[in-house]
C-alpha cells in the first residue's frame, strides 16, 4: 500500500505549486503512471480521494494517464514485445525499457485570484 505514501508526496508537490501561485483552489490534477511502475492506479485513486477531503484539492478530480510498457533494442533494432525474453532477437542485447515506469505529476489546473 505504498500508494498512500505516493499520494502524500504528490500533495506536498501540489501544495508547493499552489502556494507559489497564490492559488485559492486546485481544480484538476493530471498524473502519468506507467503500467509497470509498481503503482496500482485504482489504489492510487482511492488514496487520493481519502487524502483530498478538506484540502486545497477537495474539488479537484484526479486524471490518470496510463503509459504502456515499451521495451526496445538499445542498438535500434526496434521494440521487443513483453511476455518473451527481454533480449533483442536480432543482436541479442538486453532490452532497454523505453516507457512504462513513470510516476509523474504532469500538470495542474489552479484557481487563482
Amino acid at each position, binding site marked *: 500500500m505504498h500508494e498512500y505514501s505516493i499520494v502524500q508526496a504528490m500533495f*506536498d508537490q501540489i501544495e508547493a*505549486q499552489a502556494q507559489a501561485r497564490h492559488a485559492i483552489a486546485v481544480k484538476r490534477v493530471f498524473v502519468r503512471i506507467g503500467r509497470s511502475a509498481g503503482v496500482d492506479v485504482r489504489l492510487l485513486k482511492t488514496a487520493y480521494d481519502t487524502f483530498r477531503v478538506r484540502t486545497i484539492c477537495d474539488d479537484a478530480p484526479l486524471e490518470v494517464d496510463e503509459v504502456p510498457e515499451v521495451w526496445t533494442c538499445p542498438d535500434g533494432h526496434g521494440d521487443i514485445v513483453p511476455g518473451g525474453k*527481454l533480449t533483442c532477437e536480432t543482436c541479442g542485447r538486453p532490452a532497454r525499457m523505453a516507457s512504462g515506469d513513470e*510516476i509523474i505529476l504532469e500538470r495542474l489546473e489552479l484557481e487563482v485570484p
Partner: protein
Amino acid sequence: MCDSCGCGDSDIVPVAVHERILANNERAARHNREQFHDHHVSVINLMGSPGSGKTAVLEATARMLGPSKRLGVLVGDLATDNDARRVRAAGIVAEAITTGSACHLDADMLHKGLQRIPWRELDTLFIENVGNLVCPAVYDLGQDVNVVALSVTEGEDKPLKYPIIFRKADLVLVTKIDLLKVLPDISIARIQENLSMVMPTPVMIPVSATTGEGIAEWVEWLGRIRQAPPVHVHEAEAHGHAHHHHAHDHTHP
C-alpha cells in the same frame, strides 16, 4: 482576476509541472549514495517475500566470511527486531529500522537508521528490506545493487507475478535449494526462464543457507560488486527527466 468584464471572478490557469512524484525520495537516495561512495562502503538492498530466507542468507554469509570482513546490516522490520538479533548472533553489526505500518523502507528512513550503526567502518552494508515483493521495488535507497531472494518453495512463477521487483534486481538468489529434493515439480531452469522474461540481464545464484551450497559463489559476487559497482543508468535519467542537484546542507553525527 477576470479582466474581460471586470467582474472580479477568479481564473483557472493550467500549470505544467512534469515532476517525478518521488523526486524527494530520489534526492535523499542520491545523498545516501554519495555518502556511501565517499566512505567506500558497498551497499546491498536485499529484498524478497516474508520467509524467503533473507536473514538466513545473511547468517550464512557471516559464517563464511567470519570476522575478516567488516559487515553490517540494517533490517527493515514492521514490528520487531528479531531479524537484527539473529544476524547479530551470527557476528555482524545489526540494527533494526522499525517501520511501523510502512510496507517498505525509503531513503529518509535509511538515512535516519544509519545513525544507529558505525556504517563508515564497514566494507559492506546490507539493507534487509521489509518482506514484500511489491512496495520496496519503488523506492531507491542509495544502494549499489538490488538483490532479490526467491525461495524454491514460493513457486516458479513469482517473477511473472511480481515483475517489477525482479526487473530492478541485479541478482536473484534462489534460496532453500536443499529443499529441491522434496519438491519434484520445481525446476531451477524454469525459474531462470521466467526471470529472463522480466530481467533484461538475468543473473541468478542458487543457494542453501542450510548446507552452504552456493554461498561461496554469492560471496564472490559480493566481492566483485565491491570492486566494481555496476553503473546504473537510472531510469529517471534515461527518460530525460530533469535532474535536481542536491547540495549537502547538513553534517553527519
